[in-house]
């Protein structure tokens, strides 16, 4: 925990921004791009940790590409039931025409998995952005101002935090869509329900950092110089309070996918005609299993697992790399391990 005390803290922190959207544009500037989160960590990782990070990034990139190019990749629409040759078969086995078979409703499984990536990625983006803004905003204000507002917000955040998130998501999705969802309202419902669950997490982390930072000399000197509260918060506190955010963002993102799928599985997600959603497909597939029909469930399920796995791998590696006790180093790290095994052999 090295705390910058020079009054211009942002310069000395290795992670200047925690906003994942900004990365793409900033990557063009040569001296700066190497210090961006993820890239910075990738460059200094070694061995197994590097492997995990790369595997995670590849998985995520694969799904993002799938989402962006869904119209080109998918052979059929997500709600297409027939083509020029007539109606699609129901529960048709994988074949040359339908690579992964067709569902009980007569949809092409492969196409729905591909289109499902679009739904998942959009939901994650919305949920993460909304949680970040609300959570960070409330955390900064609550931590900096303190007093009764702080107490109330902390109590509410703790209460929400201890509650099963899926239940909360169900309630919120009832509020937003009444349980009947089109494409946008369904994504919005899922994203906002996840936001409600995740705001307390950002809130707690940012608040704790803010409470710590507000008594730091550089914040006090800014206050003495007459800087306004919004300026102190945005300039001096916020930029230093975002250190642990990349990990929470990845947790948030994977939780978002799982919640979306959970809602869909309970029949509370997006209508199959409005968008492809993996959880809904699994809901329909669970009764297929009794007849030995595996392709309707295995593929959308595997898509969920792989995407969450990818995001989690990225998050875990980032966490390891930011912690000097866990980070593997190029040379010295090898030595103690060898001596440790040598000692074990001797014992």
């Amino acid at each position, binding site marked *: 925990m090295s705390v910058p005390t020079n009054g211009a803290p942002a310069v000395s922190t290795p992670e200047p921004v925690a906003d994942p959207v900004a990365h793409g544009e900033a990557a063009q500037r040569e001296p700066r791009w190497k210090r961006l989160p993820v890239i910075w960590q990738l460059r200094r990782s070694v061995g197994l940790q590097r492997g995990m990070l790369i595997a995670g990034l590849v998985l995520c990139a694969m799904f993002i590409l799938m989402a962006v190019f869904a119209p080109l990749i998918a052979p059929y629409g997500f709600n297409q039931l027939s083509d020029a040759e007539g109606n699609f078969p129901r529960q048709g086995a994988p074949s040359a025409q339908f690579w992964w078979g067709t569902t009980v409703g007569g949809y092409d499984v492969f196409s729905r998995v591909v289109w499902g990536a679009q739904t998942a990625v959009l939901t994650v983006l919305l949920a993460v952005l909304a949680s970040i803004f609300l959570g960070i905003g409330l955390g900064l204000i609550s931590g900096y101002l303190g007093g009764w507002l702080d107490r109330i917000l902390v109590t509410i955040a703790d209460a929400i935090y201890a509650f*099963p998130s899926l239940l909360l998501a169900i*309630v919120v999705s009832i509020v937003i869509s009444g349980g009947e969802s089109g494409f946008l309202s369904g994504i919005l419902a899922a994203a906002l329900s996840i936001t409600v669950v995740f705001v307390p997490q950002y809130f707690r982390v940012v608040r704790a950092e803010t409470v710590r930072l507000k008594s730091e000399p550089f914040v006090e000197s800014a206050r003495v110089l007459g800087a306004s509260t919004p300026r102190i918060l945005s300039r001096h506190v916020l930029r230093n309070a975002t250190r642990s955010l990349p990990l929470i963002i990845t947790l948030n993102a994977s939780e978002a996918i799982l919640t979306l*799928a959970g809602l869909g599985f309970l029949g509370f997600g997006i209508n199959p005609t409005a968008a492809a959603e993996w959880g809904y497909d699994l809901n329909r597939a669970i009764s297929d299993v009794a007849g030995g029909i595996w392709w309707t469930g295995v593929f959308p*399920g595997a898509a969920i697992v792989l995407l969450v796995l990818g995001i989690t791998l990225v998050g875990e590696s980032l966490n390891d790399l930011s912690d000097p006790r866990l980070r593997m180093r190029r040379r010295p790290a090898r030595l103690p391990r060898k001596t440790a095994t040598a000692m074990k052999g001797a014992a």
Partner: protein
Amino acid sequence: MTIAERTAPIAAAGKSSGGGGLGRYILVRFLLIIPTVFILVTLVFFLMRVVGDPISASVGGRLTPDQLAARLAEAGYDRPVLVQYFEYIGQIFTGDFGRTLTDNREISEILVTYGTGTLELVFYALVVALVVGIPLGRFAAYHRDQIPDAALRIFAILCYATPVFFAALLLKLVFSVWLGWFPLGGRASTDTQLVLDRISGSSGINIIDALRTGRWDLISDVLSHAVLPAVALGLLTAGVFLRLVRTNLIGTLSMDYVDAARSRGVREGRLLRKHAYKPALIPIITVMGMQIALMLGGAILTETAFGWRGLGFQLAQYLGARDFVAVQGIVALLAVIVALTNFAVDVIAALIDPRVRY
């Protein structure tokens, strides 16, 4: 990281008791339940009222406007929201969670009928999680930074990344359909359930009832139905336990007393098994409390996937029927249960580990 965060509020609650004795800690911790439940119930109530009244949502399309207005007036939904709110809070304090719209049953009765099923499932799942998680965590710590450790780490991530209903689907496919080892779903076969329900003073917990009859066919039937749901839900938590045990064990291995033992010539394996193991298990109790919330959420999905007639299964049925009064009631009830469980776990943790109290 998550685990450390999840235990944080408990530590904070402990501090606020100001260092009194155990009795004081329990009292303060008990009083903290009230705002938690109150906030959640209030939140859920107002969220549900934002959409409008539950009657229009449930049967609105099928009634004429006059009939609808009559039904609304009858149920009291035409009054100001605040009046309804205070009435609702008053009812909850007397243990009355309302009645379902679709089949007009008391919510508290649903808890008694189906709660036992959920309790049974969560118990089995906890057993699976502990049996899988703790030894594997120990194994990973023993082989720290070696291939088994890395493989178990991936396993733990997969446990988290696999939604319980997908795990359920895979388990059913492999072990029920392809191998035929276990039944596809339900809590027991129809015949068994009939026998168990007829027992005088039936507890509703199938395995207890089956054990009381002492008939092996009943016991094995109940257990074979429980295996797949328990594994599906248990693996979700097993990953958490695995990582927790691993991290704690590695942590306690660097403690001074372990160093002292090592300098006396105690072997690494024995250090791990005898010296570092038990202190590393204490945090599991605390985390178990936080896992209850996760498990209840998972239970809803597991029960739906296996047709396991518990609270979650019933909740999904009411969701499907758009009976939001029932949903609100069950959610409020679960809020109380979660708060009480967390309280119980905190007290147990305080009894075992004196540091928590201060």
